[in-house]
Every structure is written in C-alpha cells, then in structure tokens.
C-alpha cells in the first residue's frame, strides 16, 4: 500500500475539492489489492466448510416442451452420489417476492419443473461427495422430453410483435407531424444481439444450514440484502436467520444481483442432506443459468432543418424477453435526453421468445439506446454535410427536455472539447475513405454516452478503536469498483487518520444495510453514509472528552477539540478511552433524511429496488456524461477492424479516487470494444440454442484487441446529484463506445453497419 503522510493533518472536512491531495480525491492504491495480487483474497466459493458435498446441474437439451421422464437409475448407482433432485422429487418452496417487493403468486415455487421454456433450463441436480463423482453421475441422468415448437429469438418469424410497455412511452410535441414536414430526414433500424456479462468468476454458491431455520449462503453478490431476502422467503425463515457472505466478487457487471434457481437447488440439497453443498455453475451453464443483455431492435427517424437542427425524433424499440417473465431493456433512455428536440416520440415493446429471462448488463437500457441515437445522429450529419461533432454541439441539450428540468450538472460540452483536443479531431478529413495507411483504411468516430443517477439511502457503522484505528462496516459490496478503498478514504478524510489505519468490512448481511451495488449508485451513496457516520463518531468522541466526568480533557472547558491521527487534543484516543472506561466508540448512521426518503421501512428500502430516488426528484435532472473519440483501422481486403486509439472524456462529478475511476472507465470502454466488434450470442434457430456458450466462441476482448486508451475527467462536484458531489462512474463508460466505433468504421470504409457486432462478413459483403 502506498504510504500517505499528507493525510495526517488536523481534522477538518472540506466539501467540493476534488483531488486536493487529501484522502478523498487522492490516487490511493486499492486497499484490497495486496490480498488480490497474493492470491489471498478469498472469494465466496473458496470457503471450505467440513464435509462439503458438490452439486452439478443437468440442463435441458430442448428449448420448449415438457419433461416426460427422468431416468436417474444409473446415476444413483454411481459412486459417491448422495442425492438426485428432479422435477419429480424436488420439494416445493414458497414463491419469493420480486425486486419490486411483489409476490407474483402465493403458490409454491419449484426450482426444477417439468415445463421447459428454454434450452439449458435446469432439469436435474446431482449431489455427490466429490466434484468428479457428481460430474460423472450427472452425465448418467437420462431425460425424455415431449418437444414443442420454440421461438428461437427476436428475428424468428414466429416471434410476433409482442406487447407494448405503456410505462416506457415518452412523448412531447408532435413527432410524426414534425417528421413529415422536416426538410431533412433519415429513418433507420439498429439492432443488438444477445450479449453476456461473462465475469471471469463463474456464478455459484455454498449453502450450509446451521439448524433447521438458520441458513448461511456464501455467494458472490452485488446485492446482499436483495438476495438474502429471496433465500429467506423461499425457505420461510426470518430474514435475520439468513446470513449472506460475499467478501469479494470476481466481476458481476449486473449479473450477480439476484438469487437464481440454482441457489434454491443448492440450499435445498444442503437441507435435505444435512451437510454443506457447493454448486459451481460451469462456464457453459453461465449462458443459460441467468440472462445477459436482451437482443434489441430500434427504428429511429430523425427530422431536421437543412442546417442540421433537430425538429423531431421518432423511436420505436423492442427487446426479447422470456416466455415466463418480463425484462425491459429500456431503449428510450439516452435518446430522450441527449439532444434538444421540440418533438419526440418513443414507444417500447417486449417480445417473448424461448430464452432464459434476460437481465442487467452494464448500463442496461442506456447502452442500446445510445447505440441507436448516436449512430443515427451520425448518419444525419453525413446526410446534411455536417461534421459529426458539430451536429452534436448544434443540437446540445441545455436542459432535460423530457423532464423539462435543469441538469444538476452537464459538462458534456467540456467533454467534447477536451476529447477532441487530445484526439486531434480538427485534423480529421471529412469524407469517408479519405484517410489510409497502406491497405489500412483509417476512420475517426465520435459518440456520446450518459447514465442516470440512481440514489438509495445507505447505512454504515464507524468504530473508533482504542489503538487509534478505525473500522467501517457495511453490507455494501466491492466487485472491483473500489468500494473498500473509497470508504477507507472517506473515513480517513473525516477522522484525519491515515487510510491504512482504516479497516473496511463489507459483503455480509450481518452488517448495516446497503442497497444494490448496481446502477452506478453504490460508491456515492456509501461515501455519503460513511462520511456522516464518521463525523458523528468524531462528534461523539469530542462530546465525551468535554462532558464525561472521567474525561481528563474536561478541565479544558473548551468548545471543541481537534481530532486526528489517533489523538484527541493532546491525548492518544486509546488513553482517553481507557480513562473514561470505554474500549471503543461506535456509531450507526443512515442517509434517509439526506435523500429525502422516509425511514419507516428500511427492510423494503434495502431488499427491493423501490427505495431509490428518481433521477429528477429534487428539481434537477442528474446524469453522468461522456464523449468517446475512437480511431479504427480496417483492412481493405479482409474487412478486419482494429481499434487503434481511444480518447474519452467523462463528467462523473467529483472523483473520489482518480486511479480507480480511470480503471473503471477504461474497463467500460474495453467492454464497449467487445460489444462493437466481437460479442454476440449465436442462436441456432433449429434448436433455439445459443451455441457459442464458452469463452473460446463467445469472444470478449483480449489484451491484443485493446490499444492505448486515454481517459480525461471534466466533472465538477455536483451537490444536486449526491451528498459529496460525485456522480456514477461504472456504467457510463460503456455507453456510446459501440456507436463511436461504428461511426469510425463508416468514416473508414463508407459502410454503415447498423447490426452489432461489426464483423468482417458485414464489411466485405
């Protein structure tokens, strides 16, 4: 860890000074980094209880139909087998409520069913003494099906038009009339395929019952409280009897926020066997045990003046969902706020197909929405003969036209300026196919991105210990975004101690409440909660020093006392606590009041997503923003695309640790490169099956696919957005990358690709 002597100063708290060399804003090395580089960070599935049994799942080989018969006779005879669960034998659980806190039915929940809705759906689970025994026995389970016709995907002719989602309709002005009358217009369709989160740590869990109504789950989790609620409700045990432990998470990107059916299966097996059970989802199974980003389709029409000023945006979108549940990949988000337009209309449909229910993948909604509008605005620029950056500035939204509110902050113009300057945009030759190096066609593209501020209250404990050290406790999580580090920085800043004197403990349901680590909200809201708790702890310490009858400092009759570096006044905190007969000071604080929320129902606030604020609830519209400038090189003969240079500028408000924020920004950009050029769940339409369900065939970027990436922060502290002035960092960097690359590919080749990913067959055809 980097020693930091410059944070050992007196106690004072400044708000709004980003990067002023104090703990908050400093480029502090990741505090969990030492454990991670040593291989000493223990992820959930690496817990090793005694007498552990191993469960292996058997998946459906059909996409629709019914399990007629499961023959487990051979598997039962295999060595080491202790239990086989099938639709015929699995006990019923209670149906858990969903993330809105609504119970879809009062009926029973079966984690294995005879009805098959998608290929890969769990049909059986085999539990044995060793993993090898369970794997072998699982192969011996034979399943007979009654096969029904399946709808493979959104492009399947049998899929139909689906259902309109009324709540997604956004409209102002008269988009259709304005479009009709517009002197310049384009109408295009943009599509994205199924995309998968692919964290390098596969999903899974260890379930262990302490007694018949106390269950402990070790499982990687972006949302301790939400997942704990699901398990507790399934098994009808009090929430507090469910312990959920997730100290480190090997990546999630949206996929580790919910409890899935394999979790119920493992916990049921553990209960039936009376011993702990580990269920590790295999890499191929990660493509069907939970959903990734839904396939989307958007039709966008833009009407404009001949000078390029937008008159109308007309948007019709659809995404696939499963036959048993509804996932809305909200494509109207970015397009409704990015540009100024007097007339706007957006509608969204969901279309059921035979897939696992899609779910959240980094910047759900905003990502495909930006793919559409940031491609379309680029097409309009060429149509009219404007520079792609100029058309974006010409149509700059000075306020939120959808909500008709001012922005809390929007440094997007500054992002465009800083990015263009560093990239050298002014040297761009405007015509497609006008820049080359030998057989390489060179293209430069630009696109913007955004992500809304989601905000939920948080809660934290801060403890001041006798040796001057500080502890921070929260059920928040760190999946790599740096929660451990910035919460240590926050407590260090508030209490004027070195960061290395702060120990942060996260990822345990026995700790204070935290909402979901997703939607780019967790860092900001937990920084607020820890800051409040730390200041309260300091105040309590000072109060005791001034007022406690045994306080050696009482005689000073001071109004206040300096606290810092393990001391209060001229006393060591330990010596002071000993004098008043205490071994520590502990305070618990939440941020309901600061977020304007009622504290009446913390359980609902933290275990559902209904406790969050809207993006506009305080009269300001709060979002993060970014601008990507990307160079591609396309081989003229082979159609291969390489991203050769990226400069991206971000407005994420105040940055608490630039070193970690820059890592997240680069990581989001790299996932965007994957989305643009590589990632696609390939569906075999005959069998309704994603056939590239492994890391050799579902391609994500490798080191050799990634060029130098320069990231720039143009944000300013935004106290309308959050307590300490930060805005979301994690989701926004992926938003706009794919269209920036497609725009660059058009500039290089003159070919406009509207269907992701941009593969060579689409360029040489």
């Amino acid at each position: 860890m980097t020693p930091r002597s410059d944070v050992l100063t007196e106690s004072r708290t400044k708000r709004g000074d980003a990067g002023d060399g104090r703990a908050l804003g400093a480029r502090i090395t990741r505090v969990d980094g030492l454990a991670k580089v040593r291989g000493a960070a223990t992820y959930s599935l690496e817990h090793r209880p005694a007498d552990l049994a191993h469960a292996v799942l058997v998946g459906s080989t059909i996409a629709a139909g019914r399990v007629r018969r499961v023959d487990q006779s051979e598997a039962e005879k295999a060595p080491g087998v202790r239990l086989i669960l099938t639709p015929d034998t699995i006990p019923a659980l209670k149906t858990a409520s969903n993330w809105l806190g609504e119970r879809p039915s009062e009926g029973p929940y079966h984690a294995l069913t005879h009805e098959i809705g998608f290929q890969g759906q769990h049909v059986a689970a085999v539990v044995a003494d060793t993993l090898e025994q369970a794997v072998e026995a699982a192969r011996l389970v034979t399943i007979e099906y009654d096969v029904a016709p399946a709808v493979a995907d959104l492009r399947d002719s049998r899929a139909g038009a689906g259902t309109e989602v009324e709540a997604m309709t956004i409209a102002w002005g008269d988009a259709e009339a304005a479009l009709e009358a517009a002197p310049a217009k384009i109408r295009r369709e943009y599509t994205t395929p199924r995309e998968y989160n692919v964290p390098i740590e596969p999903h899974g869990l260890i379930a262990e019952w302490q007694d018949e109504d106390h269950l402990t789950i070790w499982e990687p989790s972006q949302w301790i409280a939400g997942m704990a609620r699901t398990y507790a409700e399934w098994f009808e045990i009090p929430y507090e009897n469910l312990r959920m432990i997730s100290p480190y998470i090997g990546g999630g990107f949206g996929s580790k926020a919910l409890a899935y059916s394999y979790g119920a299966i493992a916990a049921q097996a553990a209960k039936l066997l009376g011993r702990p059970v580990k269920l590790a989802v295999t890499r191929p199974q990660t493509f069907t045990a939970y959903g990734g980003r839904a396939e989307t389709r958007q039709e966008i029409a833009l009407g404009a003046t001949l000078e390029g000023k937008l008159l109308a945006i007309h948007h019709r979108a659809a995404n696939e969902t499963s036959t048993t549940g509804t996932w809305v990949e909200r494509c109207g988000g970015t397009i409704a706020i990015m540009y100024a337009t007097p007339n706007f209309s957006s509608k969204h449909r969901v279309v059921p197909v035979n897939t696992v229910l899609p779910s959240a993948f980094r910047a759900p909604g905003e990502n495909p929405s930006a793919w559409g509008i940031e491609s379309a605005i680029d097409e309009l620029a060429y149509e009219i003969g404007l520079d792609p950056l100029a058309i974006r500035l010409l149509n700059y939204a000075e306020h939120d036209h959808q909500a008709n509110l001012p922005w809390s902050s929007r440094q997007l113009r500054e992002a465009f300026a800083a990015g263009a300057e560093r990239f050298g945009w002014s040297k761009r030759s405007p015509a497609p196919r006008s820049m080359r190096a030998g057989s390489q066609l060179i293209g430069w593209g630009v696109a913007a991105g955004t992500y809304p501020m989601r905000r939920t209250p948080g809660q934290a404990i801060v403890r001041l210990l006798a040796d001057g050290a500080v502890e921070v406790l929260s059920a928040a999580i760190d999946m790599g975004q740096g929660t451990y580090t910035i919460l240590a920085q926050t407590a260090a800043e508030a209490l004027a101690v070195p960061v290395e004197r702060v120990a942060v403990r996260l990822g345990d349901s026995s700790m204070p409440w935290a909402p979901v680590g997703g939607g780019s909200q967790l860092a900001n809201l937990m920084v607020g909660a820890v800051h409040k708790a730390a200041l309260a702890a300091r105040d309590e310490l000072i109060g005791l020093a001034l007022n406690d009858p045994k306080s050696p400092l009482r005689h000073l009759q001071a109004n206040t006392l300096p606290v810092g570096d393990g001391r209060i006044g001229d006393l060591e905190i330990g010596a002071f606590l000993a004098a008043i007969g205490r071994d520590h000071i502990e305070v618990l604080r939440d941020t309901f009041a600061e977020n304007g929320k009622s504290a009446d129902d913390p359980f609902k606030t933290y275990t559902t997503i209904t406790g969050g604020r809207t993006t506009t609830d305080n009269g300001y519209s709060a979002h993060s923003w970014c601008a990507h400038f990307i160079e591609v090189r396309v081989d003229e003969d082979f159609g291969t695309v390489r991203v050769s240079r990226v400069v991206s500028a971000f407005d994420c408000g105040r940055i608490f640790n630039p070193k970690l924020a820059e890592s997240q920004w680069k990581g989001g950009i790299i996932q965007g490169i994957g989305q643009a050029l590589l990632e696609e769940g390939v569906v075999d339409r005959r069998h309704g099956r994603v056939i590239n369900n492994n890391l050799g065939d579902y391609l994500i970027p490798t080191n050799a696919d990634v060029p130098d990436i320069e990231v720039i922060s143009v944000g300013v502290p935004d106290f309308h957005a959050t307590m300490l002035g930060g805005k979301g960092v994690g989701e926004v960097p992926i938003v706009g990358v794919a269209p920036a690359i497609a725009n660059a590919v058009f500039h290089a080749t003159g070919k406009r690709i509207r269907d992701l990913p941009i593969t060579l067959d689409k360029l040489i055809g």
Partner: protein
Amino acid sequence: MPNAAISLRLQINGHLHDLTVEPRVTLLDALREQFGLTGTKKGCDQGQCGACTVHVDGQRVLACLTLAAQVEGRTVTTIEGLGEEALHPVQAAFLEHDAFQCGYCTPGQIMSAVACIREGHAGTDDEIREYMSGNLCRCGAYPNIVAAIRQAAEASR
C-alpha cells in the same frame, strides 16, 4: 476400477505434499479443493480464460487442463509461492498500476506475466499484449496490465 484412488507426492511452492485422489482429478481442483490453495482460480475449466495459470518446472501451464498425476516429480509454483515474504516485482507492479479490478483473473495474469518476462516476450507493448492474450480480464485492466509488465520487465533487465 478406473477411478480407484492413486497416491501422489507433489512438490508445490517448495513443499512436498502427499495426496490420495482419483486419477481424473485436475491439478486445478487438487490445488483448490485438496490443498486449499485457492489463489489459483477457476474461470472456465476448459482452457480458455487463463485464470488457472501456474508454473510447472518454471513454464506457464493451465492447471484446469493438467491432471494432478501429470505433475508428480515436477515443480509446481502457484501465486501463493511466488513472493512468500516480499512481493514479487510483478505483483508489486500490478498493485502500483492498478492492473486489476475484481482481482479474479489476477493470479493467472501475474503467473503468466512472470513467465512472459522470463520467456523474453516482454520486449515491446505489442509483444506483451500478444503473449498475455491467453489471460482474459473482463474488467478490462489490459492497459494497466501492460504498463505493469513493461515496468517489471524493464526492472529485470
């Protein structure tokens, strides 16, 4: 009895370990499940991600595609054995350059990086990128990984 247990004596991180396992047990599962050496990660279990990279006789090897029985009489080094007292320079460089986020691919990246430098494949950034492309990182720490390896390689010359 094809799966009758066999007795193995393995040298891991400089220590000899006796082990009785079925012959089909991989080195990866032996390390993680039998020895509790969970620094070696399971990302795909089919040789596609590199998270399980260890050294066998000093060369980088995928532990998920290696049977435990194959390494008897050979020297196995895992992330836990790389820098037992002080950090190995590659570990220190990864820390300094923030060459990871979630940390799950990190032990494999570091084991690969140490071998990559030793092989003489860290001469340029492009060479590092090429010879580190067997180790996937979904958080996208690649630019920082390259910076870390560049620094460690330069220091080793």
